[in-house]
């Protein structure tokens, strides 16, 4: 089959990134031609400021050298502009009079500096700051001349001014706004920045409007302000904004409104033509930062790479000024507005200012000056739209300092950690090792870091921290961590999207789900198969069939695999209560099958360790007890104290309540393991405060706590409600668990689910809406009604193929 011809106009970061995404999926799909008017390979435009400042060399910022194009069979037409698009013949014409035919055309022509239309703008010595050529001009000018004027006190203007100052020029910044960076900072932070830049010798004219540029012999000599003031200038850098390069598209009759208009699939008004990067207008927005470009590239790359259509829905951006020694950070709606709360810390003398904007208990904006070490964390909270209930009182002071107990999602101040700080406790990976791997191997995503270092690859509790180390190592320019995390490498859909599709499209098998959602692999991977299987059986109980081959070994053989590949067997002991007869039976079975150890578990039952796989079915038969699901992402145990039946402090029958709960929720699969406890009084001997659902009896009824966790990182359960009767305990607990079963992502514990949706949300669904509560509880009961005992279900005719070996 003849390859399709893909032509890319624009040899810059957005276009080449899109090609890289396409090639990742399918390296043979297209015959690719790139037309670029600059004479080199794709380089990192963001790093031009450090080059001007003398902090980096040109060769350091080349992203794709000419070998890259050759290796990937990409033809590069360099140093040659595209001059015309002929949509009827599907050809692009170049300045070298070549006509290059395309089946698909990608326009990524970027933007150009907006040149103020004032008299004298055409004089020599008046430039923008966009490419290598401009940077070289500035470096030469700095060596020959004295006076520079930068028009525009935005990010780019200040970086240019800073670089020229470092190169010995006398620099004046003319800014129309009342304070610097008024698109990124509020006035207070802007004033702090102004002070700091003035101390470095920059002259700043704020609220100043340029009237004309004056010159002699065709070369600029000065800038005249509307106030009449004349500022001498041998070099004028215009940095007042950018204009999308949309002329080619406009002339070809493609819809252009400021930028090239694209829809959420990055298609233009011509179905054969796509556009990405700074040249586009997406939902009325043109972006000038790198993160959105990369997100667009990913969406379009997937689509052109044959991995299904996705939507680009816009990007929340954050900014940072690349001026060494000045720390500022802003993201989102940093100015606040209606219905917003502001949390502010202001220490002008100390040069520190932090302003956080909160709406509906979620972080929507942040503006930091002087101390930006928590910027990445705030940005993470903002993109995750995380509920702030548990963080709000401490929010201004950064993430909880919980390194000692291997902090979870919130993570910590990665940048400030010493190199020998242990980031991943499971695999003993220190920050130094991470940073080295990130730098040497050029890692850009958390997944890559996991694969190479194993950090975060086991229990995963340090993932947030790993992400922060990554961010602080590769810098904010490359915040590649997507706000949407795909379920795994087999798909670009998120857990949420997959759950929704299964529900909306009534998908009941793994194969159908993978097909409907354009899975990139034939039968998934160890990450997605177990997740999909759970989503299917929890969404369509009784209808979707459990697929044992989509489960990891424990849930496939219904026992816990040990390091020597033997298994452990845990029968259920309702509420931790047993009997002499049951104990005798367990002892006999343990003897008969040569069990290596009998151990009391943390969940008040007995674990028989060292069992061979082929002995499992016979052991289950002889035990003749229910499966304890001690291996399961599902209901583990209900721990109880003795309660008022025996205990002199007991206020209620906690043992009986525990047994009732365990029987009600027996055989329940869930996104992750679920542990309950019932204590008979507030002394709480059953440790209900660290359970997914913890019940504490008081004289007048039962208190219900949710979202506790004893493992990885101890999380204290939140008080949920108080009820009077045992029936209510069942109904309320059942409804909470069913909500978790229906909405949580696979491998998300209750505490993390609660952190994501907020305790108030769970309350609104369960406490405030009685109809919904009863419906949830009914759905759980219905789902469990058809669920067989896992051990009994294994004893069928096909048990042999699963549990016995062959011989030669």
């Amino acid at each position, binding site marked *: 089959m003849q390859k399709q011809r893909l032509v890319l106009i624009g040899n810059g970061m957005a276009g080449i990134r899109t090609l890289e995404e396409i090639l990742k999926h399918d390296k043979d799909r297209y015959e690719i031609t790139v037309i670029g008017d600059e004479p080199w390979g794709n380089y990192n435009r963001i790093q031009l400021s450090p080059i001007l400042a003398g902090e980096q060399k040109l060769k350091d910022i080349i992203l794709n050298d000419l070998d890259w194009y050759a290796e990937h069979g990409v033809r590069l037409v360099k140093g040659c502009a595209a001059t015309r698009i002929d949509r009827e013949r599907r050809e692009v014409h170049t300045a070298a009079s070549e006509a290059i035919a395309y089946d698909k055309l990608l326009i990524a022509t970027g933007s150009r500096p907006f040149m103020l239309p004032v008299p004298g703008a055409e004089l020599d010595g008046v430039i923008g700051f966009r490419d290598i050529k401009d940077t070289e001009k500035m470096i030469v000018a700095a060596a020959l001349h004295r006076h520079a004027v930068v028009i525009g006190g935005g990010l780019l203007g200040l970086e240019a001014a800073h670089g020229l100052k470092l190169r010995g020029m006398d620099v004046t910044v003319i800014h129309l706004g009342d304070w610097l960076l008024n698109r990124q900072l509020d006035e207070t932070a802007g004033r702090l920045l102004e002070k700091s830049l003035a101390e470095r010798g920059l002259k700043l004219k704020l609220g100043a409007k340029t009237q004309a540029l004056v010159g002699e012999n065709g070369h600029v000599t000065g800038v005249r302000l509307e106030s009449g003031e004349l500022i001498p200038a041998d070099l004028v850098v215009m940095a007042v904004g950018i204009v999308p390069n949309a002329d080619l598209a406009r002339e070809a009759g493609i819809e252009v409104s400021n930028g090239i208009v694209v829809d959420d699939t990055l298609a233009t008004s011509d179905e054969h033509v796509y556009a990405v990067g700074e040249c586009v207008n997406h939902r009325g927005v043109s972006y000038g930062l790198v993160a959105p470009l990369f997100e667009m590239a990913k969406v379009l790359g997937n689509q052109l790479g044959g991995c299904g259509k996705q939507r680009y829905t816009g990007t929340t951006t954050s900014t940072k000024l690349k001026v060494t020694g000045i720390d500022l950070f802003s993201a989102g709606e940093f100015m606040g507005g209606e219905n917003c709360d502001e949390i502010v810390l202001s220490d002008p003398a100390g040069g520190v200012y932090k302003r956080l904007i909160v709406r509906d208990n979620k972080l929507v904006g942040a503006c930091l000056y002087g101390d930006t070490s928590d910027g990445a964390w705030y940005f993470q909270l903002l993109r995750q739209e995380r509920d702030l209930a548990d963080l709000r009182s401490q929010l201004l002071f950064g993430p909880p300092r919980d390194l000692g107990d291997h902090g979870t999602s919130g993570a910590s101040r990665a940048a400030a950690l010493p190199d020998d700080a242990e980031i991943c406790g499971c695999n003993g990976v220190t920050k130094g090792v991470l940073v080295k791997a990130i730098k040497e191997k050029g890692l850009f995503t958390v997944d890559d870091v996991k694969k190479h270092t194993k950090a975060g690859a086991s229990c995963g509790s340090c993932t947030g921290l790993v992400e922060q180390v990554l961010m602080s190592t590769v810098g904010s320019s490359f915040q590649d961590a997507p706000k949407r995390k795909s379920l795994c490498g087999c798909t670009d859909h998120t857990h949420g999207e997959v759950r929704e599709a299964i529900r909306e499209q009534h998908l009941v098998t793994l194969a159908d789900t993978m097909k409907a959602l354009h899975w990139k692999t034939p039968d*998934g991977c*160890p990450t997605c198969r177990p997740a999909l299987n759970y989503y299917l059986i929890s969404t369509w109980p009784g209808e979707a069939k459990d697929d044992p*081959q*989509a489960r990891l070994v424990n849930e496939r*053989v219904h026992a816990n695999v040990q*390091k020597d*590949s033997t298994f452990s067997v845990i029968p259920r002991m309702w509420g931790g209560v047993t009997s002499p007869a049951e104990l005798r039976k367990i002892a006999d079975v343990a003897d008969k099958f040569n069990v290596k150890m009998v151990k009391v578990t943390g969940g008040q039952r007995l674990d028989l360790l060292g069992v061979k796989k082929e002995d499992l079915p016979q052991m289950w038969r002889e035990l003749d007890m229910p499966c304890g699901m001690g291996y399961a992402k599902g209901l583990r145990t209900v721990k109880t104290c003795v309660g008022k039946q025996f205990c002199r402090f007991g206020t209620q029958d906690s043992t009986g309540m525990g047994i009732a709960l365990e029987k009600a929720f027996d055989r329940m699969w869930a996104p992750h393991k679920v542990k309950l406890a019932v204590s008979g009084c507030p002394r709480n001997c059953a440790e209900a405060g660290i359970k997914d659902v913890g019940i504490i009896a008081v004289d007048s009824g039962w208190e219900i706590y949710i979202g506790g966790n004893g493992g990885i990182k101890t999380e204290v359960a939140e008080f949920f409600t108080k009820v009077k009767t045992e029936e209510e305990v069942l109904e309320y607990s059942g409804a909470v668990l069913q909500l978790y079963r229906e909405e949580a992502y696979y491998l998300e514990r209750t505490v993390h689910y609660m952190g994501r949706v907020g305790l108030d949300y769970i309350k609104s669904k369960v406490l405030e809406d009685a109809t919904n509560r009863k419906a949830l509880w009914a759905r759980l009961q219905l789902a469990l009604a058809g669920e067989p005992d896992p051990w009994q279900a294994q004893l069928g005719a096909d048990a042999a*193929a699963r549990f016995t070996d*062959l011989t*030669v």
Partner: protein
Amino acid sequence: MSADKNQWQSICKLDDIPAQGARVVKREGKTDIALFRTLDNRVFALDDHCPHKGGALSHGLVYGDTVACPLHNFKISLQTGQAQAPDEGHTPCHKVELRDDTVWLAVD
């Protein structure tokens, strides 16, 4: 169909191995062999021993032509026995064939 000093033996029917699963073949005094069956009914034979910590690969999850070790998620190619980069290690492979619906293994 000679395979050096190896002897071809019929081991079982294809359906004796669960699809996307594995079955163990015990050998006297030697490492067990795991027979794998992929979704598209290809059959592979590897030592039932992960190069990392010796986990039983037969307990792993089979996807594509790869098995993920149940102990620490090392991914081993069924074609080559090679651990997927960046992990390192190799598990010996054995010759195996599907003749009609019977699985034949070359054992030494």
